[in-house]
């Protein structure tokens, strides 16, 4: 594995922040985890990865046996890239360490959307400098099939530290599906993931992330996107499986006129899971638009569902929708929608609702012949249904399949 050469400035800033607790979420003791950079064998043919790993990756939307429906693939196990490949012209998929060696302009993107010293997690990613993925669509190229990436925890107590750079060049169209999962269903682990997205003028980037961790894993993604004029950034996040502690608050900044950002999140908190998840959008250019939608279900875990939209330019428009369903158990959902406007003529709104399934709705379905359990399942399925405007039909179907595969666990 090639080493990323850290810049002194970033290193210094990271060192200064190395003990800085995050603003939100439980403080994770990084000393509890192993920062291993053990080599993992590179696998040119991803279908030859161990069957168990492939099966778990498939649960997170990563298909390795038949990659004909993928325009590229990246797989990282713990802290090592084990496979990267491309099947379509105009698309680049490689380990970020390789991209740093290949392109001297990477400095224009490295720690430019996410600050290195936000907290000890970003600092730790910088100070350890392992790997991550680099995915780029060249100007004007449009992917037909999505690029897939998998970040996989294979060892117990491992701290996976990832730094990803994603670039959709001008007028390109790039679809990415990322699955994050673990080999063990019980071993503790830590995932620290920095992702920086750059959506250039007129580009369209859809990013669908499916998390399938285990009840002992802590997760701290640090993500930001910069969207230029007429660019579209569409982010879908699905967490249906238990996780011990997840805190993330990705941010997108619209810097170009008429940029559009849409965030959709589906969150399920099983007993013992603690989630603090939101999305932030800064509308800093004329006519920029955003829509943030989250659906949260607790079956016994705790969820803080955040959302923040800030309007700082003329004719911007934003809507935040946050709905929570307390299905069973002693879980908690705390919805925190926030809006901030700094100019006249902006249009920001939100709606939030938290509750259990209304008896009236159950009875309505029961009057059509469904049992109480079937009626509950139908309502939950509807609650979790995401109709994402702008997402290709194939990805939409995959997203829906990933959700439906876990629905039975909720009942």
């Amino acid at each position, binding site marked *: 594995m090639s080493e990323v050469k850290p810049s002194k400035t970033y290193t210094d800033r990271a060192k200064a922040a190395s003990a800085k607790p995050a603003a939100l979420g439980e403080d994770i003791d990084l000393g509890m985890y192993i920062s291993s950079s053990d080599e993992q064998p590179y696998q040119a043919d991803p279908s030859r990865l161990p069957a168990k790993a492939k099966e778990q990756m498939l649960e997170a939307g990563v298909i390795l046996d038949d990659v004909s429906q993928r325009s590229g693939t990246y797989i990282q196990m713990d802290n090592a890239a084990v496979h990267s490949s491309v099947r379509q012209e105009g698309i680049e998929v490689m380990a970020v360490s390789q991209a740093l060696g290949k392109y001297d302009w990477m400095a224009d993107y490295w720690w430019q959307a996410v600050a290195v010293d936000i907290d000890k997690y970003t600092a730790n990613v910088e100070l350890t400098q392992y790997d991550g993925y680099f995915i780029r669509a060249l100007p004007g190229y449009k992917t037909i099939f999505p690029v897939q990436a998998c970040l996989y925890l294979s060892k117990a107590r491992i701290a996976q530290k990832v730094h990803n750079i994603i670039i959709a060049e001008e007028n390109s169209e790039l679809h990415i599906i990322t699955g994050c999962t673990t080999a063990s269903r019980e071993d503790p682990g830590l995932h620290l993931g920095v992702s920086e997205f750059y959506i250039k003028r007129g580009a369209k980037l859809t990013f669908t992330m499916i998390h399938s961790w285990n009840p002992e894993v802590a997760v701290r993604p640090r993500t930001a996107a910069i969207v230029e004029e007429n660019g579209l950034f569409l982010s879908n996040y699905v967490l249906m499986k238990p996780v011990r502690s997840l805190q993330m608050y990705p941010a997108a900044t619209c810097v170009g006129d008429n940029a559009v950002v849409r965030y959709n999140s589906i969150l399920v908190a099983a007993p013992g899971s603690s989630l603090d998840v939101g999305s932030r959008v800064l509308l800093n250019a004329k006519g920029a638009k955003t829509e943030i939608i989250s659906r949260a279900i607790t079956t016994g875990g705790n969820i803080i569902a955040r959302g923040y939209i800030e309007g700082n330019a003329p004719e911007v428009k934003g809507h935040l929708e946050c709905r929570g369903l307390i299905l069973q158990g002693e879980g908690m959902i705390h919805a925190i929608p926030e809006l901030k406007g700094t100019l006249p003529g902006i249009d920001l709104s939100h709606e939030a609702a938290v509750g259990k399934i209304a008896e009236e709705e159950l009875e309505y*379905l029961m*009057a059509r012949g469904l049992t109480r359990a079937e009626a509950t399942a139908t309502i939950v399925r509807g609650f979790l249904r995401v109709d994402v405007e702008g997402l290709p039909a194939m990805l939409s179907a995959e997203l829906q399949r990933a959700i439906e595969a876990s629905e039975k666990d909720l009942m």
Partner: protein
Amino acid sequence: MDDVILSIERLTVEVEGREILHNVDLEIKAGETSVLFGPNGSGKTTLLMAIMGFPKYQVTKGSIVFKGKDILGLSTDERARLGMGMSFQRPPVVRGVKTRDMLTVCAGGEGGEALDAVAEHANLTDLLDREINYGFSGGEIKRSELAQLLAQSPDLALLDEPESGVDLVNIALIGELINELLEKGHRIRDRRHAGLIITHTGHILDYVSARTGYVMCDGVIGCEGDPREILKTIKEKGYEECIRCFIGRSRNERSKTFQNIHG
């Protein structure tokens, strides 16, 4: 057809501890349509809800026999599966559940062309992929409710104010859908589907024929007869006349009972 499909005897129903229906008797035969008139708040919807078995509507006395079976111990879904269906006056919005999903549920899980045909007939095609009842107009709600019943094809359809809030353009279509639901196109002797239609205004009788009419006031069914004649009286004299007639009759009945007991 003389088989009785629904037989209600001396039914008394409470809602949240308050008695709403008192000793209601009603009988509907297979293939026949009955109409229940009554002013707002008279207990008409309570009767439908109790027949359908919603838990809030507690039967404290009397019986409901459907297709020869005492159904008081059955849940709403069991009654639906036994062949009972209901169109709601104000159905709830169920976010995320689409009109298409509801029609599929009603059809017992079967979608496909037959379902599309029902939707088209009810002028619902544009609403198939909308969340059920979300932002629907009055007419859309009624058409959607009736399309669901058409997909379900129940032996007994309970229709709660199918014409309320519907404009003149839609009401003819509503009437047509009810006629289809109740097999009005079939010869009388071939009809199996029965209906109980609640109406406040009686407008629906301009489009749907019914065999028997009942009037309910203050939780009591006070008269039974030709629905058109009943409607004529209500139009001419208002429900006040029905109430006066009820009170007069119940006095007579009381004195008759008194005479029977005391000779």
